[in-house]
């Protein structure tokens, strides 16, 4: 069965770009527009990986990562966050919150899939 990935980003462009790339790589993708939305979707399905932006309205990326880690069933679920090089401090914060890794924006599709493959097979 194909692995399921939850993509969380308030920017439609990024959300669609990430989803499109992952679907092309034979992953199943669900989309959420912010942290709150993501938590609701997580309740309803099974996901092997979460990819989230850090800056989002309502519940931001850091908050979302903490909330996911707090759920017993997602203690070991890999979580990737989207970042830019200029956000070194945010990177630390996200790691501390329990994120597994990151993807530097902007990215090429190959890189995104490469990073995802580091975490799920």
């Amino acid at each position, binding site marked *: 069965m194909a692995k399921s990935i939850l993509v969380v980003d308030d920017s439609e462009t990024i959300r669609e770009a990430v989803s499109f790339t992952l679907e092309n790589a034979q992953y199943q993708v669900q989309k959420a527009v912010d942290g709150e939305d993501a938590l609701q979707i997580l309740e309803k399905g099974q996901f092997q990986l979460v990819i989230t932006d850090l800056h989002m309205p309502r519940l931001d990326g850091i908050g979302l990562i903490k909330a996911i880690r707090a759920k017993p069933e997602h*203690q*070991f*679920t*890999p*979580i990737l966050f989207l970042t*830019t*090089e*200029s956000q070194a401090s945010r990177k630390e914060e996200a*790691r501390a919150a*329990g*994120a*597994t*890794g*990151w993807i530097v924006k*902007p990215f*090429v599709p*190959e890189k995104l899939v490469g990073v995802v*493959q*580091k*975490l*799920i*097979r």
Partner: protein
Amino acid sequence: MIEHLKQKYLEEAHDLLLELEKTLLLLEENPADSEGVEVAFRVMHTLKGSSGMFGYQQVSELVHLLENGYDTIRTNKQAVPLSLLELSLESVDHIRLLLTEDTTNTPATEGAHRLLLKRAAELLYEMPAPEDERAMPAAPAGKSLRTWAIFFAPQQDMLKNGSNPLYLLEELAGFGGFRSFSCTGQLPPLTELDVQQCYLSWMLLLATEAPEGDIRDVFMFVEELCQLQLEPLGEGDLLADLKEEQLTALADKIALALDKESFAAYVRELKTTTAQVKPVVSPETAQETTAQLASGVKEKSVTSIRVASDKLDDLMNLVSELVANQERLSLLAELSMMPELAGVAEEIEKITRQLRDKTFDICLVPIGSLLTRFKRLVRDLSQELGKNIAFEAEGMDTELDKNVIDSLSDCLVHILRNCIDHGLEAEAERIAKGKNPQGTILLKAFNSGTNVVIEIKDDGRGISSEKVRNKAVEKGLIRPDQVLTEKESLELILMPGFSTAQSITSVSGRGVGLDVVKKKIKELRGEVSIASKVGQGATITIALPLTISIIDGLLVRVADTDYVLPLSFVEKSYSVTPADLLNTKNNQLILDGEPVIYFNLAEAFSAGSLSNNAFGVVIHTGTMRMALLVDEIIGEYQAVLKPLGKFYQEQDFLSGGSLMGDGTVALVLDPQKLIQEITKNRTIDI
């Protein structure tokens, strides 16, 4: 604070754009230059990052697209397609525009932006996607197969952030020959084992062509969650050379390893084992690394800091003030008859002089800093006009005051435009004339005495002095019967209201002539001259003084007024009495047995007759010697040049005024102009 940072960003962005432009032009000459691609990519990457941060989203998105293109080229080791270079150069211009327009754009810019984005996207679409490096059949030169020893010890709670160490090992295994040995020393008894913890660590042997960076990238997400040690064991695939029993023996020992220290010990052991099979480092590689090290050291030793140019202007002004006051102090000290004060004044003079020279030095900028702009100009124009032009530059490390450079830049651009538009012929015409199909423009700079000389030489049509003359008559610039030398005729094109262009073109014919250049250069106390041979080309020469604000001079007095003669022109001083002048012919004095034309400043400035014990100061310019008669020589003097008021504007032979210690003004003479002026009006009396 934000504004301040933004200013920094803009400075950085402009520098990056300049570097990018330079790189792109180099790439255009050699599209397969992988180093150039690397630089272009890096510069774009930096530009993209900072632009996004400061709200220049449009810059960021455009650069991002281009950067992707260069990344692909970099990965595929291709040559850069000319279409991409063209687009990149246009983008550089566009980004400059975006940066000046701040974050609000005019509709025109907006449209241009969307068009560029579209073109970039289309171009990228046509380019082949990057191939997997590892899948490439033959290892490109410079990449070599190496064997690495890797020690990887995850923290026990690594699994808790979602990482799976086994996936990392699998990824590594994809890099080439791979062996892994588990270190089981930390496994607790089964009853105490927590399935959510990671107790194992690994010693890995990997034979791969991948560089160290790629290997480390595998561990990028767990860097802080593990101990990782990476050590090259040697060149080549040592795994293939190791015997099975050796490996098994090693594995047994490794199984109990717990830490870096024991890892190091095993690596040493492995190294000795493998050394018997193959030399660890071949002599060539050893040499290569030494060379790399040496060049690395050299790069590091050149350091510089960035200073805002208005700070330099402030510094320069302060130094000028200091020099003026120091001169005043020196004069006062001399009058005071206090030996101690004289000593202090002398010391201060020495230090001031050094400070002045250092400050000058700081403000000097090599002409080469303008080179990219010129190259670009020549490239764009020659394309636009369909001419084949080679642009060469010599002596680009010649330095000039940065203020001079700033003003000079526009002048040179103007001259270059003229060369390309009017001077150089189209390829067909050149071939018909039996010339090299490719036209050449040579920009050459060099030091000559206290001047910096800049020549712009082309091998085009040249300028016909006759045509210039006729045109000048037609325009009413000279009388038809006026006698002019060849050189004087040529230089008529520098006069206001002159333009030889047959038709007005977008390149150089907007009604602005070379007279603007002449005016600007004159403001810099420089000279423009033209030489040309019809059919062979023209040379425009600009001579500029090294610095424009402080000069070393000789202070002299004529009647009650002080004058400063730039010391660099002064040769020698002689005592001259009015009696000496009585029996002279053709205004010539015999000094040291040689006739020298003299010029009586007192007479010229209507300041009465010469005093009884006057002096003749012999000055020389490149071709002429002349004795200036003055009443008194006061001594050496550093003159801080200030522009004179409008009453003096027409007085060519004055470079400016200098405020003296006692508040009076000394006039600074320009010997070159003075000699020109005198020789022009001199009638020879036989």
